[in-house]
């Protein structure tokens, strides 16, 4: 193969983007910048899905995460204008404890994650036929339940944020 180095190179760039932007979301103090960096993380993740051969999932990722959820979060940032507080973390006094905790959990997980080896890979040609076959045959009932869940979430969000009207009698 002549282009053997392309896939690891693209993977390296995308993983660097995902991890760096994800860390910046946690570490940056400005909320709007954090939201846009979150969108960048989702875009890099969509690139990883394309690299894995899951183009349909990548399209859903761009549509739902980069489009809808980022816009929703930005609306939330817009509506909750809050005075600048000095940047502070919850556990800033427990830094040695946090370092010990992260080292004791994260390092074994990171080492363990490299032990997975690939099995029989999926055949090429995209994932849409298999995905559609599974969703509309074996998972048809959970699919409908998910639509009901979305409806309930929509009604719940409207009820939670609705301002109390003038016709409501004061208690």
């Amino acid at each position: 193969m002549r282009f053997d180095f392309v896939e690891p190179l693209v993977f390296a760039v995308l993983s660097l983007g995902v991890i760096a932007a994800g860390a910046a979301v946690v570490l940056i103090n400005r909320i709007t910048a954090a939201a846009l960096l979150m969108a960048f993380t989702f875009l890099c993740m969509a690139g990883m899905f394309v690299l894995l051969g899951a183009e349909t999932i990548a399209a859903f990722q761009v549509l739902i995460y980069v489009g809808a959820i980022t816009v929703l979060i930005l609306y939330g940032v817009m509506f909750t204008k809050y005075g600048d507080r000095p940047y502070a973390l919850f556990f800033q006094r427990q830094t040695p404890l946090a370092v010990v905790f992260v080292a004791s959990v994260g390092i074994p997980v990171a080492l363990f994650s490299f032990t997975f080896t690939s099995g029989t890979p999926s055949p090429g040609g995209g994932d849409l036929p298999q995905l559609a076959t599974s969703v509309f045959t074996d998972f048809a009932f959970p699919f409908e339940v998910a639509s009901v869940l979305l409806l309930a979430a929509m009604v719940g969000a409207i009820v939670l944020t609705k301002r109390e009207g003038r016709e409501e009698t004061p208690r």
Partner: protein
Amino acid sequence: MIVPLGAYIAVSAALFFIGCAGVLVRRNAVVILMCVELMLNAANLALVAFSRKYGAVDERGSVFVVFVFVIAAAEVAVGLAIVLSAYRNRAVIDVDEIHQMSG
């Protein structure tokens, strides 16, 4: 050379830990919601990676990713509604200042 499955799982684990740390250490409720989304997306990457690397028969993992999309959309909608409601009532958005959840 093909990128091994372990590399994808390592990136997924790293992003999950980043999101978990963000949920634990940040005060702003909107940023906490963002970090929850990061954790969900890390789980999505693991699901898609396993599904593509082992999925010679079908794509069950990708189906679960579709459901995770649905759950994430519902979660962020209701979560932001709760945050906006708390902000309207008390004008606070930092979770260490929201002492009681009574409206």
